């Protein structure tokens, strides 16, 4: 009896977790001019509007571009740091772990503000998209580090030594021995970095340069003044894009994620 009660309770919580997402997706098929749920008739009209809206399309392009660049950068830096952490850190291990997780532990809004002031004070400013990419690298770095270092823990250093004794240089050893073995961790880290970068708001909001917005910023700006279902269509496309990345990586690359 109490077991059924627990199951019923948990189902309610799962429904609560999914509810706002389902509502957004449902509202995007609304045929009417206003945002209502349940929708008044089904139609793709707001998707058509969205696909003709240059502002949102360019925001998607910016988001994908920023996410791709910051994923590449933070995956390289994070993987190197994870290798050092597991194999060479010694008594510095705990400090390095803490330092690498720092961007996760500090409030994102404070990190965003302080980075904004800093890029202005060194004369870099937000004229280019560089400041935003640096911000995205900062917040995605911990996820690469967590995933790759978890994969590194099961890597036996004697495999590298064996390859070394057979005459392989450091880069060959990394490319031919270590990378294939820690690949699931690296891919998991990249995936998390990409999704987090694609969806992050505060950092992008503070560090955006005039005229280039990522999708979450554009959506937020739009929502403050408009109430048409177009925003729901944009949101649904964004959800589908994220799901697509997750499913694709799982199917093609094999997935192993360590988030905490």
């Amino acid at each position, binding site marked *: 009896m109490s077991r059924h009660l627990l199951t019923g309770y948990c189902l309610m919580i799962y429904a609560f977790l999914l509810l706002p*997402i389902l509502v*957004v997706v449902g509202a995007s098929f609304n045929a009417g001019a206003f945002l209502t749920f349940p929708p008044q008739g089904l139609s793709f009209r707001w998707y058509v509007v969205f696909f003709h809206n240059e502002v949102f399309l360019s925001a998607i392009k910016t988001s994908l571009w920023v996410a791709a660049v910051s994923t590449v950068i933070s995956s390289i830096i994070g993987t190197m740091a994870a290798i*050092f952490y597991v194999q060479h850190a010694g008594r510095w291990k705990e400090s390095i772990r803490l330092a690498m997780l*720092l961007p996760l532990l500090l409030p994102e*809004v*404070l990190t965003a503000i*302080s980075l904004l002031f800093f890029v202005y004070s060194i004369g870099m400013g937000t004229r280019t998209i560089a400041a935003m990419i640096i911000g995205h690298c900062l917040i995605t770095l911990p996820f690469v580090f967590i995933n790759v270092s978890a994969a590194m823990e099961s890597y036996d250093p004697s495999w590298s030594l064996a390859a070394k004794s057979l005459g392989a240089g450091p880069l060959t050893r990394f490319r031919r021995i270590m990378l294939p073995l820690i690949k699931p961790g690296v891919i998991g880290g990249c995936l998390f970095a990409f999704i987090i970068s694609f969806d992050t708001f505060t950092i992008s909001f503070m560090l955006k340069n005039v005229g280039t917005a990522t999708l979450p910023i554009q*959506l*937020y700006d739009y929502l403050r003044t408009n109430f048409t279902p177009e925003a729901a269509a944009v949101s649904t496309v964004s959800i589908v894009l994220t799901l697509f990345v997750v499913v694709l990586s799982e199917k093609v690359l094999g997935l192993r994620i360590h988030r*905490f």
Partner: protein
Amino acid sequence: MSLRAKSLKPFALIAPAVLLLGVFLVLPYINIVIMSLRNPGNGTPYAPGFTLGNYLRLFADSFYLEQTANTLMIGFITTFVCLVLGFPVAWQLAKTQMRFRGLAYGLVLSPLLVGIVIRSYGWTILLGNNGMINRTLISFGLIDRPLGLMYNSFGIVIALVHVFLPFMILPLMSALQGIDPSIEAAARSLGAGRITAFRRIVLPLAMPGIQAGCILVFVLSLSAYVTPSLIGGLRVKTMAVSVVDALIDTFQWPFGSAMALMLSLTGAMMVMLFARLTRMKWKAN
């Protein structure tokens, strides 16, 4: 080749990460502390010279004190509701055998894949005066006028609970998984009732998970920006929203920095207090 291997010192591996974090995280944090002590500018973001005036202004103005109290209250309630709602789910995921465990775990994680703007937007559709909940209640004749579910702290708490519930469930789950079921069984065989066994055995052992989850959710809800801004609108502003207003809309960099630092320090103090209180309580048991 061996020469090249020798020159590749292991420190080169960590150098880029240290450089990135040092230059773009640590230096900016030092910079923002200095900024909070600058004189407010007239037409410029800040003026030369230093002052404590920005901090004094926060304490002198009852508006900011009330806002701080309100923000802390929203954080406390959100954390408490997350704990109460999340514990049974974490328990089921950790302790019971079920066929759809993978699916259930996926459901808990799924909101994390959807951006925070979209999730908050979903709540505006649900909670608005013309939203789904109010419309449904009116069409069933249960209410005449829409209930005020949005533009107040109530709406903000509901949306924040949704956004941060996964961050409570995950640490709770891993703590509960680590508890050896035979310890609980031993307590029961020694005559402890269900509730006593739970209170004296399970809760203390789950405490690290409870602490981690509560701290995570509390800190995240204090510094949340999008959700309070979209749900609270212009009527209810949390501190994080006011901070961003001060910086982006009115360009008061020193005052905004002081407010942001006060918000973070208050949060950190609450977390330390919480950690100390819970540790003392469970040691006494």
